[in-house]
C-alpha cells in the first residue's frame, strides 16, 4: 500500500516536472533559451541600477548575448562575462538581430526563385493591392491609396552622414 502511494506520488512528481519544463514545441518559437536576450540597439549599456540615470558599467554592441538573471518592470538584470547589471528590455530582443542588408539579400534571392513561377500581370497587380477581383470593399474606397506618395517618402530618407552631423551639431549622443 505504502509502495503504491509512493509510486503514484513519484510518477506524478516526474510528470509535473516534465510539464513545467519548456516543451520542444515552444522551443520552436524561441530557439534561444528564455533566459537569454540579444542587444538590439546599436548603442546600449549595462547600468549599475535599474534607472536610466544610473552609472553605465559596460558598453554593448548590437547582437551581444546577455544572460537574464531577473526582471523588474522595463528592466532586465543581466550578466555578460563577469559584468552584472541592468538594461532596459526595450533595447533587447529574444531573437538574434537580423540586419537589414541580410534581409535585402534574401529578398533578391527569393525574387529570383519566385520569378520562375511568375503569375499573369493582372493577377499580380490585384494581389499586391491586397485584393482580388470582385473583393474591392467599402474600406478600399474609404481609404484610397497613394502609392506614389510612399515612394516619394521612401526616397526622402536622410543619409546616415546627415544624421551624424545633425547629432553632432545638436550635441546629442
Amino acid at each position, binding site marked *: 500500500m505504502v*509502495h*503504491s502511494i509512493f509510486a503514484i506520488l513519484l510518477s506524478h512528481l*516526474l*510528470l509535473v516536472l*516534465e510539464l513545467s519544463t519548456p*516543451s*520542444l*514545441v515552444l*522551443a520552436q518559437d524561441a*530557439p534561444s533559451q528564455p533566459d537569454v536576450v540579444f542587444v*538590439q*540597439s*546599436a*548603442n*546600449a549599456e549595462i547600468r549599475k*541600477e535599474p*534607472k*536610466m*540615470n544610473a552609472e553605465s558599467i559596460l558598453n554593448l554592441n548590437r547582437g551581444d548575448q546577455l544572460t537574464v538573471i531577473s526582471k523588474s518592470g*522595463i*528592466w532586465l538584470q543581466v550578466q555578460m562575462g563577469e559584468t552584472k547589471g541592468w538594461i*532596459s528590455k*526595450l*533595447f533587447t530582443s529574444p*531573437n*538574434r*538581430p*537580423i540586419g*537589414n542588408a541580410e*534581409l535585402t539579400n*534574401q*529578398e533578391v534571392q527569393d525574387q529570383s526563385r*519566385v520569378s520562375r513561377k511568375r503569375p*499573369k500581370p493582372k493577377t*499580380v497587380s*490585384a*494581389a*499586391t493591392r*491586397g*485584393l*482580388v477581383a470582385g*473583393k474591392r470593399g467599402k*474600406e478600399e474606397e474609404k*481609404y*484610397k*491609396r*497613394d502609392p506614389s*506618395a*510612399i515612394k*516619394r*517618402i*521612401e526616397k*526622402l530618407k*536622410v543619409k546616415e552622414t546627415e*544624421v551624424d552631423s*545633425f547629432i553632432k*551639431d*545638436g550635441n*546629442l*549622443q
Partner: protein
Amino acid sequence: MTYLRIWIFNISVFALLNCSTPPLTEEEHKERLRAQIEEEVHVGKMMAERLAGHFGAFFKNPRLVRYVNLVGQTILRHSARPEITYYFAILDTEEINAFATPGGYVFVTRGLLTKIRSEDELAGVLAHEIAHINEKHMYSQIKKDREVSSSETLVRMMSRGGSQMGEAVATMVNKGLDILVEDGLGKEKEFEADWAGSVYVSAVGYDPWALKSYLERIKTQLSTVKVAKTHPPFEERIAAFEKFLKQNGLKAVDNRHLLHRFSLNMSQRERTSL
C-alpha cells in the same frame, strides 16, 4: 498492476512530450523571422499608402520634411529594430495627430507640428510612434493567428495570385486603418508607447519630460476631437507618464541650445508656408 499502469501512462506522456517536432535550426528560425518581417513590412506599407491617400502627404516644405526625418533618424540611433527601415513623413491635415504603421512608417500631421514648441517635444512624439512599431502594438493586433511557414510566406503566396492570401492582407490592412483612424490601440498600448518613447529619447540625449509638456498643452484643445477617441484621457495619461519617468530615473534635460535650429526649421512661417 495499478502502478505498472501508472508508469506506462507516464512513460507514454513523456514520449509524447519529447517526440514532437524537433526544434528549428538557427537558419530555419532566421528564415521564419524573415518571412514574418516581410509580411509586417508589406502590410504596413499598404496601410501607409492608404493613410497618405486619406489625408494627403505633405511635401511643400522640404526643409520641414527633412527636419522631421533627421529628428526621427536620430532617435533610431539607439532604438531601431535593425531588420526594418523607418520612414518619416508629414500628413497634410490640420488635425493634430501622429500615426505609425507596422514595418517602419511614421507620420505626423501638419496640425500637430503647429503645436510643437521644441525639438525635444517633436522627438517625444516621434519616439512614441516608433515604440508602437518596435513593440508591434498594431501588428500583433491585426495579424491573423496563424503559422507563417518559412518557405511559403503570405507575400510570396500573394504574388502568385493566391486569392485567400490577398483577402487576408486586405483584412489586416483595413483592420489596421480602423484602429489608427477610428478605434485606437487601447489605453495600455498608448501608455507603453509613451514610456518606451521616453526611454528612447533619453538614450540619445533628448528631454524625456518634453512629451509631458506637449500633452499638457494640447489636452484642452483635443478633448473634443478625434485623437481623444483613439487615445486615453489626457489626465490619466500624463499622470501615468510622470510616474514612469520618476520611477525609472528619467531626468529632465535642458536642451535650450536646440531651440535655435528648431526655430529655423519650424518657425511659424515654415510651418504655415503650405
